């Protein structure tokens, strides 16, 4: 089966600073890594290839240096990689990013399964996977924690929900996002690293993807970040007085008025 894994290069630290002028992340002087959630997507793709045969292609949209993330993915077992890079792609929101990625997936046909990490650790939106599925008009399942079976053009998975899990089935091709419960990503191998150093990684821009410049990058983004801030944590505690019955009654009243129960 042909699998496409989408990944993003992110700053390798949890202490990123935000540029107060542009409200974007300051990336200078910070080591870049593959978005940790995407490493599970790569691993699952490689495992499926090992089991079912086929090919794993990794793609990312980013500046030229994002090629390093693709090479790392090749060292971890991906067969091929494509870098989506063009000045016109800069400043993309999740919608424009998903659009660009979806055009690359369309160009990589035939494709049976598209795997993404559940979200990035820098943007944290978790929107690109589902948006891309919508644009490709493919079925989508989020938070997949286990692939149960792939047979007869169908995929059955277990996905995490708030209080347990659901088992879902879909036809292929499909888009899924995976959670970190799905596997333990392998470390690279020496032969993988050597292969990754010489791997040819094509760069696709506006021309190769045959997209309208107005649909990508800042121009294609319908949202704009106005402000990034840490939410204030508000803690309020109230100690209930009286005997046990009174306290329970008061508690129930409070919960009712707060519409919790």
């Amino acid at each position, binding site marked *: 089966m042909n699998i496409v894994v989408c990944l993003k290069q992110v700053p390798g630290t949890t202490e990123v600073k935000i540029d107060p002028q542009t409200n974007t992340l300051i990336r200078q002087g910070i080591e870049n890594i593959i978005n940790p959630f995407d490493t599970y997507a790569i691993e699952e793709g490689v495992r499926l290839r090992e089991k079912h045969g086929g090919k794993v292609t990794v793609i990312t949209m980013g500046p030229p240096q994002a090629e390093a993330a693709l090479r790392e993915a090749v060292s971890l077992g991906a067969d091929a990689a494509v870098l989506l890079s063009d000045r016109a792609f800069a400043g993309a929101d999740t919608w424009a990013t998903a659009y660009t990625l979806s055009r690359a997936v369309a160009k990589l046909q035939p494709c049976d399964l598209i795997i993404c990490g559940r979200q990035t650790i820098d943007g944290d939106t978790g929107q690109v996977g589902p948006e891309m599925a919508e644009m490709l008009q493919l079925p989508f399942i989020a938070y997949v924690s286990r692939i149960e079976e792939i047979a007869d053009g169908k995929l059955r998975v277990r996905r995490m929900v708030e209080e347990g899990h659901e088992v879902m089935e879909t036809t292929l091709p499909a888009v899924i996002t995976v959670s970190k419960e799905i596997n333990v990503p392998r470390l690279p191998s*020496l032969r993988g*690293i*050597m292969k990754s150093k010489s791997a040819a990684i094509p760069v696709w821009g506006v021309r190769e993807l045959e997209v309208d410049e107005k649909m990508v990058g800042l121009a294609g983004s319908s949202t704009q970040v106005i402000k990034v801030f840490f939410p204030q944590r508000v803690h309020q505690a109230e100690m209930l007085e009286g005997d046990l019955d009174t306290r329970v009654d008061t508690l129930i009243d409070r919960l009712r008025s707060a519409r919790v129960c």
Partner: protein
Amino acid sequence: MDYFLTEEQKTIKGLARKIAEERVLPVRAELDEKEEFPWAPLKELADADMFRVFVPEEYEGLGGGCLELCLVVEELSRVCSAVAVSYAASALGCMTLGEYGTDEQKRRWFPDIASGKKLAAFAITESTAGSDAGNIKTTAEKVAGGYLLNGTKQFITNGGEAALYTVICLTDKTRGARGASAIMVEKDTPGFTFGKKEKKMGIRASATRELVFRNCLVPEGNLLGKPGLGFIQAMRLFDRSRPGIGSQAVGLAQGALEAAVDYAEQRVQFGQPIISMPVVQHMLADMAILVEASRALVYAAARYVDSGARNVTEESAAAKVFASDTAMKVTTDAVQICGGTGYMRDFPVEKMMRDAKILQIYEGTNQILRNAIAVNLRKRKARTA
């Protein structure tokens, strides 16, 4: 210090460090406590192609030399010397095959060692033959269909866990060491069993066992090189493997030094971190000097071996002796700096100090190796006189 490693060597060293820190560190205390063979970390090393490093390229290896092997062993030993020696023993167990084996023999055994599917081991030591390695008693009598092995090997690293053993035994017992030969013996050969598993002071996760041969018939095709050359083959092997023990010592000492610096920085006494006290600073400085000097000597000896030099006895012995004496001193001082905490088994330097002692003993005691160096000094003097 920059040792001008190639890109490939840096890649090997970097990946070995990653595996050591991510996959060995979390389990080292438990493996030591339970004296459990480190199969899981070794599987990680196999998946990362680390067992290919020391196997020739024609047999599914990466064709690395002594230095490449040293880099892996050093990084593993920095975290756990027991995992390092279990890995290195597989290299030791197939180096004679690499040097004296036929193409057919190499094709038969190397690929599974390269993939890490099988571990190898080397066996020469017996109860009567430690430093006096020529005094072995295990015999391999030539019979119809091969060699019949009888005898007991002692203190064999990877014993019981390895699938393939290079065994030095007497094919002609009338000639003593000159009648010794190297024979490959596969696990599960009838007549080949394992004796008791030793309980050790250090490197406790590694397996050390007796190999017992009772009328064990081994095919003639398992003999490596010519009969009668086994002792020379073994001595030549150790000359080339000793930098590996040196690198194990360098890694161990490096790990202990780092642990001591970490502790000295956060331990506050008399209102200040103990690292700001001159007495501790000088101890740490001396440790750092010794570790770096050992590394320089070990890398130089490994490169000398890789250069194809004919006689490397003196250089490899010097590297092993200096680095292992360093490891003993540095780990002891690391425990001293960490004080009561360092003496406790919950803290890693206690294990490191126990792990260090064997380095002065195995693959030639430091006394025997000093003898060898002295012999060379006298030979040189005699030549120039």
